[in-house]
């Protein structure tokens, strides 16, 4: 009986200890999250397109904790299937994406930069002179691998 009671007490202590550790970790994590305000969060960058160029088009990339179910290679192929022929994948990053004009609000995406620059004709506003995209990025859902949309800009 005493042994049983002792075991029960030890088990309860272990439970409390585990709960305490879990709560402690949670508080610590919450503090860390609260401490990293959106403004202070480091931006995720692309080597092939400057942050300034993306920002000019209204695209903001930031780090994500989401784990992708589809590989970057698969995302790259999806991007090529949805962007004009002649493009190659310049780089692929997983990021939280906010793109107001594109209707994307803080969503985890594979961001696939395709190129080369100035190889893709852009809509040119009823002008006969051709205009070309300086950059083109495709957004691919990291959990389903489906193409969401692409954005391209002449500047």
């Amino acid at each position, binding site marked *: 009986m005493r042994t049983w009671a002792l075991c029960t007490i030890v088990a309860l202590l272990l439970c409390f200890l585990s709960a305490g550790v879990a709560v402690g970790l949670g508080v610590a994590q919450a503090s860390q999250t609260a401490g990293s305000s959106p403004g202070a969060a480091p931006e995720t960058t692309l080597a092939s397109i400057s942050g300034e160029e993306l920002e000019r088009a209204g695209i903001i990339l930031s780090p994500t904790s989401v784990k992708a179910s589809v590989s970057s290679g698969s995302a790259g192929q999806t991007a090529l299937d949805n962007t*004009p022929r002649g*493009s190659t994948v310049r780089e692929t990053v997983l990021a939280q994406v906010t793109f107001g004009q594109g209707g994307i609000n803080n969503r985890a995406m594979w961001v696939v930069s395709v190129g080369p620059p100035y190889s893709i*004709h*852009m809509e040119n506003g009823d*002008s006969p002179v051709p205009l070309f995209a300086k950059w083109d990025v495709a957004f691919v859902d990291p959990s389903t691998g489906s193409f969401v949309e692409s954005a391209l800009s002449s500047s």
Partner: protein
Amino acid sequence: MLGPKPRPLVRISRWTLRLTLTAAMGSAMALYVPIAVHAGGCTGSGRTPGSGPKPSNFSYFDGVDAQDNGSELGGVYSDIKDYSPYVNTGDAGAYSSQWVMLKQQAPCQWAQAGYKQFINGSAQSTRRSFVSYTASSNQTGCSPYTDQSGIVEIDYTLGDTEGSYHYFTVTYGSCTYDCTVAWGVYLNAFRFYHDGAQLGGDYNVNNVADGNWFVPDLAEIKAEISKFKEQMAGNGTDKEDFSSNHFWSGGSSGSWKTMGGDYWNPSYQSQYFGNTVNSDTDVQVWDKTATGCTS
């Protein structure tokens, strides 16, 4: 002593698995958007590069435009037939498109929405809906527009089937989709719609870093090819159809006007392309000279 095998749990687990798989398949089907195949295009290989009056990589247009004595326009829409024109697989980055547009003629800026056919990275003819707008402009006139800065284009997946009709709408200011918003509240943004559903978010011209601002005074409904070699949408027996064409003029006391009468101007090059005005709200266009097209 072990008791009965916990079959209910197993059944629940299997059913859960089945439900999960069914839901996953349903989600996948919902997310899958078929690519419209090239079926309505002319046979053959388009036109010979260099045979047109302009350089081979210059664009051509076929459709109508409308204005109301320089008045501010609040919107433009058309019920556009989904047609898959021929695009040469060898023309990387080229396209054939059909769209509606609001434009400011000076300084030149625009916002447009429509269909776009191009060859993708797997050499397949691919069709997407798109929006495009100028985020800045350093140029006074629109033709020719050579400013290589500040144009943004967004391409979306597309579930429309070839031959079906779908509304594309661009609105400006207080004129939201049906222009029923209270006009006292001035909303300085362009919006793009496909069958009444907004494509992306608002493009607020006030948010542009350089303080860019533009007020549309011209509405356009057109088909376009980015290179002379591609097919303008439509052929002699299966024409591209822009129907229910309207634009909004007159601000808060305005109305949707037809793209006809005193307002409009058919715009095309008749030696290469056809343009038939069926009524004030309907115009059909087609390609006459791409290989295999019937005029």
